[in-house]
């Protein structure tokens, strides 16, 4: 119950922190649009301001020049400079007239507009400046050394003038404001249209994902096929996902299939020993028998049970080896010397081999280090040795050789001098429960599992195991272990 509760809390947490692609996309669209609008606004305002200002400057320059034209020499002699105020140019804004002042070379004020502010501070040398006069913002320019246009005989060199001219910038401000408002409103309209379009596009764009999810929901242990609708296959971005899903499904199917097959094989293999046991007991009970007969029957049954027990144990070993080979089990591995595990296996088998008058010889050339569980390796060697000894005639020998390669891949061979394996059986000997000759194998106590276990374990360590056999001469089993012995990861197993 506590577990269920925990799972529910976990789910709720996920629910709360769930992020939506749609929301994220819309937000990013909105943000980029807003940024764009702001940029546009700034650029628009700046540009408008510059344009208006340069227009104003040009305007004021023209006005200033026309002021310069109004400075004339009088008819008197010597000719005096004077300002003809009758022709003063009209102001841009009649309500806030322009300001101007004209100085002669010697800084003598020639004229100035009536509204010229008394306390106007001018920065020396600046040709443009902004200021406020009685609350009205002004922009002014300075024209230096403007020659007097009027020509008078007797004046050798035309005098030059310094002119200041300023116009109010109120209208400029209001124009900028209007531009800003226009840009802002059109951006807002564009933004909302974009959001709607983005929502529609995203929904349409994510539809294949929904389709894929619907299809994936149909996959089960009985239906491993993932049917990809065309609208999903068309989407390029979904390809990595669908490909890995298809790969994962086929891996799962294979491993499911193997489990099912194993279960089927196991059930099938168990039936015969159970049938033997059952029939023994039934025929014992069929009618009253002497105590000797009962005793013999019970002893037989016990033997049958022991055989059944061994079969079960082997099947469990195989199941473990296959699980391990599929990466379902993770264990701690240590660096072991393959030679040492071979020696241990030979020791384990020696007494039994000698009881069958078979010699076991071990040939090694130094250490062969490998990362593995030593029990696994010993089990493989024992299985291969048992097989070799089992099919060896009396008085023959079995040779085990470990070829280490200075930390490189190691090769271990098991050579017997038995009757060999028929070529037709050779491709099948590593299949579980495969027995080339069932009656003979039964007589020798095999179940047809030893080689399957060996293959499963060796495959788990990334190695290979092969058999070659010459009928009448013997069989050689060759195990190749990769350098270092890093077990295969689940992902690279298939």
């Amino acid at each position, binding site marked *: 119950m506590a577990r269920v509760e925990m799972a529910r809390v976990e789910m709720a947490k996920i629910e709360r922190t769930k992020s939506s692609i749609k929301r994220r996309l819309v937000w990013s669209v909105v943000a980029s649009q807003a940024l764009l609008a702001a940029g546009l606004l700034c650029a628009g305002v700046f540009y408008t301001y510059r344009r208006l200002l340069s227009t104003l400057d040009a305007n004021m320059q023209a006005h200033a020049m026309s002021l310069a034209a109004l400075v004339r020499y009088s008819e008197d002699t010597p000719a005096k400079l004077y300002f003809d105020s009758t022709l003063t140019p009209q102001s841009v804004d009649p309500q806030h007239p322009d300001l101007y002042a004209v100085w002669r070379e010697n800084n003598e004020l020639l004229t100035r507009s009536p509204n010229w502010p008394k306390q106007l501070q001018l920065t020396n040398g600046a040709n443009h400046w902004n200021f406020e006069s009685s609350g009205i913002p002004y922009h002014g320019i300075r024209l230096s050394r403007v020659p007097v246009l009027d020509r008078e005989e007797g004046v050798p060199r035309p005098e030059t003038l310094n002119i200041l001219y300023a116009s109010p910038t109120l209208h400029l401000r209001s124009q900028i404001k209007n531009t800003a408002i226009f840009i802002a409103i059109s951006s807002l309209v564009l933004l909302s249209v974009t959001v709607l379009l983005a929502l529609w596009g995203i929904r349409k764009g994510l539809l294949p994902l929904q389709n894929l999810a619907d299809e994936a929901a149909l996959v089960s242990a009985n239906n491993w096929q993932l049917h990809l609708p065309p609208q999903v296959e068309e989407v390029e971005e979904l390809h990595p996902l669908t490909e890995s899903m298809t790969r994962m499904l086929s891996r799962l199917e294979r491993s499911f299939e193997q489990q099912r097959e194993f279960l089927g094989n196991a059930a099938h293999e168990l039936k015969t020993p159970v*049938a033997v*046991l*059952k029939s023994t007991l039934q025929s014992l009970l069929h009618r009253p028998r002497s105590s000797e007969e009962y005793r013999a029957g019970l002893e037989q049954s016990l033997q049958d049970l022991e055989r059944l027990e061994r079969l079960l144990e082997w099947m469990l070993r195989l199941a473990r080896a296959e699980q391990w080979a599929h990466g379902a089990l993770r264990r701690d591995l240590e660096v072991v010397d393959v030679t040492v595990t071979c020696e241990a296996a030979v020791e384990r088998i020696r007494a039994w081999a000698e009881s069958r008058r078979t010699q076991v010889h071990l040939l090694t050339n130094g250490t062969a280090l490998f990362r593995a569980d030593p029990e696994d390796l010993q089990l493989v060697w024992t299985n291969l040795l048992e097989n070799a000894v089992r099919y060896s005639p009396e008085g023959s020998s079995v040779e085990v050789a470990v070829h280490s390669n200075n930390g490189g891949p190691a090769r271990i061979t098991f050579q017997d001098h038995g009757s060999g394996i028929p070529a037709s059986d050779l491709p099948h000997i590593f299949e579980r429960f495969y027995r080339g000759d069932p009656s*003979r194998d039964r007589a020798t106590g095999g179940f047809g599992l030893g080689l399957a276990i060996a293959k499963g374990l060796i495959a788990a360590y990334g190695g290979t195991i092969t058999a070659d056999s010459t009928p009448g001469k013997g069989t050689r089993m060759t195990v190749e272990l990769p350098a270092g012995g890093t077990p295969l990861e689940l992902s690279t197993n298939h």
Partner: protein
Amino acid sequence: MRVLIVEDEPRLAENIARSLRESAGYAVDIAHDGQEGLFLAESNTYDAILLDLMLPNLDGKQMLTRIRSAGQHTPVLVLTARDEKESVVALLNAGADDYLTKPFDLGELIARTKTVIRRGKGQPSPVLTIGDVELNTVNRTVQRGGRNIVLTAMEYRVLEYLAHRPRAVVSKSELLEHLYDYNWEKFSNVIEVYISGLRKKLNDGSSRQLIHTLRGQGYMLQD
């Protein structure tokens, strides 16, 4: 009746054979692989064959096909560890008369063996009736006119075989063939001994004989 067991697991074969001998009174031969089974089936006449499927040399289904294509009608009861529908259907289509999945019940095995033998000889009922003689093949009892008749094992076997083939002439050699297994020396004069014993026990006082002797041909059970 004589039955052939083809089974590679010697213990199982021995247990089945013992049961068939003890509780059905059948003569039983055992073959441990398909080749041997095929040889025995071809060289002897059996009333039924119990056939395991997983056999060395020649598997059960191949052997069955060979027997059937050679025109043998012997009923075949298949013993299989597989119980998938397809393989059962395939077996029956290959000519099997019945099947049993391992591990089976010995009682059921015997009952089914009796059934395939009976049906093979055109006798649907387990109680065979010839005139007023009733032969119950289930509990191996014989009655005549409601009176129990106690027979020896061999006498019963002779009568049972004849009763399965009423009104047919059965030669002495056929009787020998179906009453003894492979390991027995066959002497035809023992049949005469059993027949005369049967005649005495079945005699109900009338001069009417059930078992007729056809000189030079054999015997016939007829009311």
